[in-house]
């Protein structure tokens, strides 16, 4: 039955070797024995497989007709529901019409076409010596013909052209990326002494008395919209304002004066990769980052209690002005955002 016999008798028997008598090289076991398919032996089964292929093609035909009917009969319309129905019918029609053809073709090849295995011996990848020598000869001929060794000016011109060409790619690349070498802008935000804290996005100034315990205010600096690039500034300057019971607040000596009656303001930019940290749990005083679940303890200097962030959120020192509105004492005392920038500018 097998047409791939290369001298090795296929054998399923297990050959055992005594310890220390293992052969140097295992023999090629050859192909497994050929089994006839049901369709090869029984014409009825063959007929059945043929019918299955026909059914698969028929499914494809029906689905294509269904797609066309749906395209004209169920337009997307204006409502969300009608759009969804239209998409659903078109999608099912397309899927079945293509899958029908694909499955029919594969089933046809597997069940009806012959299943004789054929072996093809691998040939050597290396060419024979004559071919290789001929190839080298062609190259040498070309080099001699161009006379590159003798024509020094030509050689120099070619090398110059090849060496200079990459500049056309590199110069704009460096120019665009590094056109602005002012790194200090990453170190500073638009907060400065006396800037009022206002609500995001409505821009109302906030009285300290309005920040009740348990409140969270999302803060932008006053005058943000007048900046030349408000979104660039906002991306660095957003702050989260929380009021805690002063007895629950743990503060280091140097940062005692940075809060006001239990009101603390922290940068909203995560120190991991800069997502806006804003999921505040009122009862645990934990602040969560939505991207990688870094968790900061607002009652304890926003120190990291969980997650990949490496350092606490920078705190904005705040106080109140004569009218009772909350203002910043100064800019942040460290760069906001991912730790990368802090290392770069130090």
């Amino acid at each position, binding site marked *: 039955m097998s047409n791939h016999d290369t001298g090795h008798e296929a054998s399923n028997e297990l050959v055992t070797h005594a310890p220390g008598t293992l052969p140097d090289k295992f023999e090629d076991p050859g192909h497994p024995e050929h089994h006839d*398919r049901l369709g090869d032996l029984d014409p009825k089964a063959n007929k059945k497989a043929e019918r299955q292929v026909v059914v698969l093609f028929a499914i494809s035909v029906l689905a294509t007709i269904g797609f066309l009917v749906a395209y004209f009969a169920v337009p997307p319309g204006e409502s969300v529901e009608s759009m*969804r129905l239209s*998409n659903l019918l078109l999608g099912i029609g397309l899927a079945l019409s293509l899958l029908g053809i694909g499955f029919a073709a594969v089933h046809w090849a597997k*069940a009806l076409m012959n299943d004789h295995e054929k072996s093809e011996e691998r040939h050597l990848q290396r060419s024979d010596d004559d071919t290789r020598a001929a190839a080298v000869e062609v190259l040498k001929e070309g080099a001699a013909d161009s006379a590159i060794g003798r024509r020094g000016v030509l050689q120099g011109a070619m090398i110059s052209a090849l060496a200079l060409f990459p500049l056309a790619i590199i110069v704009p690349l460096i120019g665009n990326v590094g056109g602005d070498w002012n790194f200090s802008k990453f170190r500073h935000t638009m907060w400065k002494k006396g800037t009022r804290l206002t609500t995001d996005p409505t821009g109302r100034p906030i009285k300290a008395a*309005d920040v009740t315990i348990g409140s969270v*205010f999302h803060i932008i600096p006053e005058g943000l919209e007048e900046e030349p690039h408000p979104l660039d500034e906002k991306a660095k300057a957003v702050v989260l304002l929380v009021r805690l019971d002063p007895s629950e607040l743990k503060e280091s000596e140097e940062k005692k004066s940075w809060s006001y009656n239990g009101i603390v303001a922290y940068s909203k930019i995560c120190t991991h990769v800069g997502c806006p940290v804003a999921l505040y749990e009122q*009862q645990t005083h934990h602040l969560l980052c*939505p991207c990688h679940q870094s*968790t900061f303890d607002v009652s304890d200097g926003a120190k990291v209690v969980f997650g990949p962030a490496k350092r606490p959120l920078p705190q904005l020192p705040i106080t109140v002005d004569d009218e009772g509105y909350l203002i910043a004492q100064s800019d942040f005392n460290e760069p906001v955002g991912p730790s990368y920038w802090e290392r770069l500018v130090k």
Partner: protein
Amino acid sequence: MKALAARRQDRRAPIVLLLLALLLTGGLYAVLAPTSADAAPVKASTDDIATGEKLFQANCATCHGPSGSGTESAPSLIGVGAAAVDFQVGTGRMPMQMNGPQAQVKPVQFSQDQINQLAAFVASLGAGPAIPTPEQVDPALGDPATGMSIFRTNCAMCHNAIGAGGALSQGKFAPNLWATTPTHLYEAMLTGPQSMPVFNDANITPEEKRDIIAFIDQQGGASPGGLDLGALGPVSEGLWAWVVGMGLLIGAAVWIGAKSS
């Protein structure tokens, strides 16, 4: 008219006039009188407070203390206001069914009248936010576009960009908002239940709260792209693509490679 004029002297005329006058007064009262929801939080009678206290003693005092001042297992209710009671009891979160990371929504245990009486009692313990009027929470009066920008800054990080809800830490979660009534949405912002922070009227003004309610009112309809998989973003969609989608592809590859029997 003549017939009417002739009957003016009839003995029954005063009775008819009296009936008409009564009808007019009643009609005017029905039109002009404040609706019950309007009046309930403002005009809680002493009766309501007394009934509310009885309800409180029977249902809440075990945890919150007989005077509502809290115990080790539950917070003080002095100063939480009627809005907090209407939210917690009106959504079934209170009375709490079991201990857990957070109180879960369950079938409401009291009638709205009883909730109002409980609210009146708790409000009498100390000043706190009142239950909003129907006008304050009417989505038709709010501006969904403004509501969206405020929702995006203040709410979306926990409740998801379209209010579908999301996970917090240690089993806590921010719930889906689509089925929450406008009044309960307003009260939640005002009182900050459980993990949620407080958003008082200086932070988000009453008009802005109504805008947010108008925005949420627009969410939660049919999803244009078919299954929304909980609207939870890349986690559920990725799971679907990797497990179901790639599972089918691997299955098809195995079938193509297998020998026909």
